[in-house]
């Protein structure tokens, strides 16, 4: 397993957001994490990236214990996140934002090739290359956040609701891109409200409720699980 989380507790102030969750992500997998608002999905992501320190529990990455590692070290180790809310550097241009994604990498031809790749995936970004990130529309910012995460060439890519705020057509495209990235060898942990889409692409998935993991299984299994259908897939 590439990423392993054991028994993680995370608090916000006196509020406990995660109650002893354990999950794992294997090399080359797409793992989805679904759950209602406030279930603790983003908190889990933040804990993996090191933005939140767990009060108990252990996180290992590639066999190494990273529970106490600084967030910037984790990036070097190969974990990169496109966070919820996008976290665009609003004063930097689109291109500078993308270069920030490659902050820990060496400049060179490889980097420029990756840049071109991102521009190919999102032509809109290329158009807006010199526009400050803060003036992009919501959806454009989402593209930028994903593109930026790709620029770090992570071993493990964390995507927190990548489809949020995207137009239907783009959503389909994003999921297509996710599959492509995986095929190029990147492991992906995906948080999604769009459970239908997420589960149908994921190798495995976890369901979170009020800070705990209540169910896990392959994407296909969960997709047909009646309780999951009832709660997350809507009545359609």
């Amino acid at each position, binding site marked *: 397993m590439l990423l392993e989380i054991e028994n993680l507790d*995370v*608090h*916000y*102030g*006196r*509020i*406990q957001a995660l109650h002893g969750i354990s999950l794992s992500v294997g090399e080359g997998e797409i793992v989805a994490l679904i759950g*209602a*608002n*406030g*279930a603790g999905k983003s908190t889990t992501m933040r804990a993996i990236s*090191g*933005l*939140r*320190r767990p*009060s108990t529990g252990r996180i290992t990455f590639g066999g190494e214990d990273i529970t*106490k*590692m*600084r*967030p*910037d*070290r984790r990036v070097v180790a190969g974990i990169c996140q496109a966070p919820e809310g996008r976290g665009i550097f609003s004063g930097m241009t689109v291109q500078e934002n993308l270069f920030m994604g490659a902050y820990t990498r060496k400049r060179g031809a490889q980097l420029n090739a990756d840049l071109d790749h991102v521009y190919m995936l999102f032509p809109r970004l290329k158009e807006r290359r010199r526009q400050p990130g803060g003036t992009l529309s919501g959806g454009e910012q989402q593209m930028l956040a994903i593109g930026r995460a790709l620029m770090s060439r992570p071993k493990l890519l964390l995507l927190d609701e990548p489809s949020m705020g995207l137009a239907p057509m783009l959503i389909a495209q994003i999921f297509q891109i996710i599959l492509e990235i995986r095929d190029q060898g990147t492991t992906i942990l995906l948080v999604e409200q769009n459970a239908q889409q997420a589960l149908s692409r994921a190798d495995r998935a976890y369901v979170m*409720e*009020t*800070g705990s993991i209540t169910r896990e299984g392959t994407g296909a299994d969960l997709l047909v699980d009646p*309780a999951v259908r*009832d*709660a997350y897939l809507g009545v359609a």
Partner: protein
Amino acid sequence: MTTLKERYYAVADGVRKAEAGRQKWAQGLRGRWQSIPKPVRLLAGLAGVVLLFALPNIAIPGIPFRTDEIPNGIGFSFVLSTIAIYVLVAVGLNVVVGMAGLLDLGYIGFYAVGAYTVAIFGSPDSIVATKYPWLICVPIAIALTMVSGVILGTPTLRLRGDYLAIVTLGFGEIIRLVAVNLRVTNGQRGIPSVPAPDEAHVDWNVFGWFRIKFDFDLDIFTPMDARPYYWLALVLIIVVILAVRSMERSRVGRSWLAIREDEDAASIMGVESFKFKLWAFAIGAAIGGLSGALFATRNVFVNSGNFNLLLSVMFVAAIVLGGQGNILGVVLGTVIVFYLPERFRFLSTKRELVFGLALIVIMVLRPQGLWPSRRRARELQDRKLEAKEAAAGA
């Protein structure tokens, strides 16, 4: 699986329980105080006030809190009167900084306008030499400072955050520097012989119709005894605090709070932010003017040195140190910031060094201030705990 609604609110319930627990913990003392029956609380408050009034006459052997008990110390009631005047200033500034969230670093300017107004119209040594009694100068001072608050506020209040801070700071300096250079303020040299509150030497010929002539001096307020000034200041503080409190707990206070939290959102929710900010400025200014008027008469002499920027910044420090937003905290902060240097006068030249270090240590240990408002305490506690759980490196 439980229903959506139940699941949904399980989290919220957790949140609420934790919040309730924390409030109880954070309030500890306050809760106990609140649980005492009201008449007892009132009595205790009254006793506190009485104690404050009696303070200049109290000495406790073994506890040398009086500043005149130390070598080269200054008269205790004099120090008390200074602190009381500064408390009044801080209460006014707290309306602007603590309640409306406008970082005004030039507040001292209003205090200066108030003081100079009294000196110019009251002192026989000023060039206008109208020699108005103090009691007549005070309303003039308040009116003038309110007007200057509006004049300063109108163009500056559309600036945000630190830009506002630096512009107000600039204005504060401009007021002081203009006072240094103008003739009515007698420049650098200042205006001596500001009248006492209880004297009047008036000989007016009203339109040539009749003559008003007073000439009295009750000799209650003299340079020899600062206690009457202290008592007067205490009375004013109590009145002003009551007034400010009732404002805080109204639509006005709520609007200030909303502006402080998110000004754009507030105005989109219908808060006329400019108007309320201007009110905060004007009210703050008026209180500043009042304290300036009080200062001028107590100090007898007024010059620009009384209004330097560092003092202005010290007031902000006092408010933050005590706990912004909470009037009693503000009072405490002011007392500490302005009492301790007097108490430690024996450290002689090193006392300001010690003071600077103390400022750092206190704020680092208690960033929420010594006695913050409930709201601020909660906010700070949250932020702190959050920071703790955030990773060490972040």
